[in-house]
């Protein structure tokens, strides 16, 4: 009985301490998380002025693509899309793709991946993804050169390059659809 009592007391004190720390850090954690995501968004959407619309994900080909559109004065300025590159070297690759109103790429960020360090991870360097900047669907073939496209694959990481390229292309296609429905209906928060 005494044992249980002591353990309960210790647990209780520990719990109290933890709730204190939790309350103290809760807001800061939120802020840090937001800041991290905003930093990524700023990289892919250089024209964004600190504000994006909170809209539900777009459905495309059986998957849901989270979209962060930037709207100024009721006009769609562009959007960031969180797309999944399938069949990476070691699983899927989560990519944030920025598109402007001319439907050209403004930047990309690799959010999550399990690729080989030093090889697949090179896809996160601007030195490589910079080649997508300003490219649009009609003037650029989103395929690696080996597959007959215009993209320079990372040496010894063709599979990663291919997966990321697919994701970027998917982002452009989804944006085009979204822009079409936006022009008809405006911002839809539902």
């Amino acid at each position, binding site marked *: 009985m005494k*044992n249980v009592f002591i353990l309960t007391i210790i*647990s209780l004190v*520990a719990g109290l301490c933890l709730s204190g720390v939790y309350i103290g*850090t809760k807001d800061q954690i939120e802020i840090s998380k937001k800041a991290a995501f905003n930093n990524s968004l700023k990289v892919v959407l250089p024209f964004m002025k600190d504000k994006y619309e909170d809209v539900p994900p777009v459905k495309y080909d059986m998957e849901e693509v989270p979209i962060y559109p930037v709207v100024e004065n009721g006009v769609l300025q562009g959007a960031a899309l969180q797309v999944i590159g399938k069949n990476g070297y070691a699983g899927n690759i989560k990519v944030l793709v920025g598109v402007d109103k001319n439907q050209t790429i403004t930047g990309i960020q690799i959010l999550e991946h399990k690729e*080989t*360090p*030093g090889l697949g991870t090179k896809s996160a360097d601007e030195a490589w993804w910079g080649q997508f900047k300003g490219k649009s669907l009609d003037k650029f073939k989103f395929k690696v050169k080996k597959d007959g496209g215009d993209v320079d694959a990372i040496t010894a990481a063709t599979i990663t390059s291919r997966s990321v390229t697919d994701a970027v292309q998917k982002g452009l296609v989804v944006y085009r659809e979204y822009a079409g429905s936006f022009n008809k209906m405006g911002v839809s928060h539902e």
Partner: protein
Amino acid sequence: MSNGNTAWSTFADGIWKNSPTLTLLLGMCPMLATSSSVMNALGMGMAATFVLVMSNIFISALRNIIPKQMRIPCFIVVIATFVTIVDLVMAAYSPGLYKSLGIFIPLIVVNCIVLGRAEAFAYKNGIASSMLDGVGMGIGFTVGLFLMSTFREILGNGSFLNLPLFGPSFSPVLIMIMPPGAFMTLGFLIALKSYLDKRQKKGA
């Protein structure tokens, strides 16, 4: 033996002679996983040291209250509390490090070094020496991690603390920052330590 000497040996034991990673071979899981860069290693080392010192102090303070039969659950509760504190604080103020250390911060709870010192030292000794032991062991853990991560980051990524050391023509030995590299480095460090110890013994 004077009292000061004992305190010093309590502290210094963990750093080299009974280094938790290189001699006792405790805490190998976080050691192998988080030593791919010096930054991660230092973060991990400091987090673990904090937990180690705090839990040692508290367990030592409570050692007369905690009944023998219930000591393991009590240790775990104390340790888990401090781990959660580290986890939350790190998530709030150092999100980058928090992201790259990932699951290994919560796993400090089951790090054998922490529980091992609680059982083997803090539960039997006074607060001051328990704290010293915690600091020593924590530094030993951090030193082991630092050595290993330095070796791995320089060879495997060509950098130290994320600062590139060599020109762009350098091809890093990628395997060193992958799991097999961790095992190989640990093996070589252990070998090096026993070699040095042996030589010291011969010299003495």
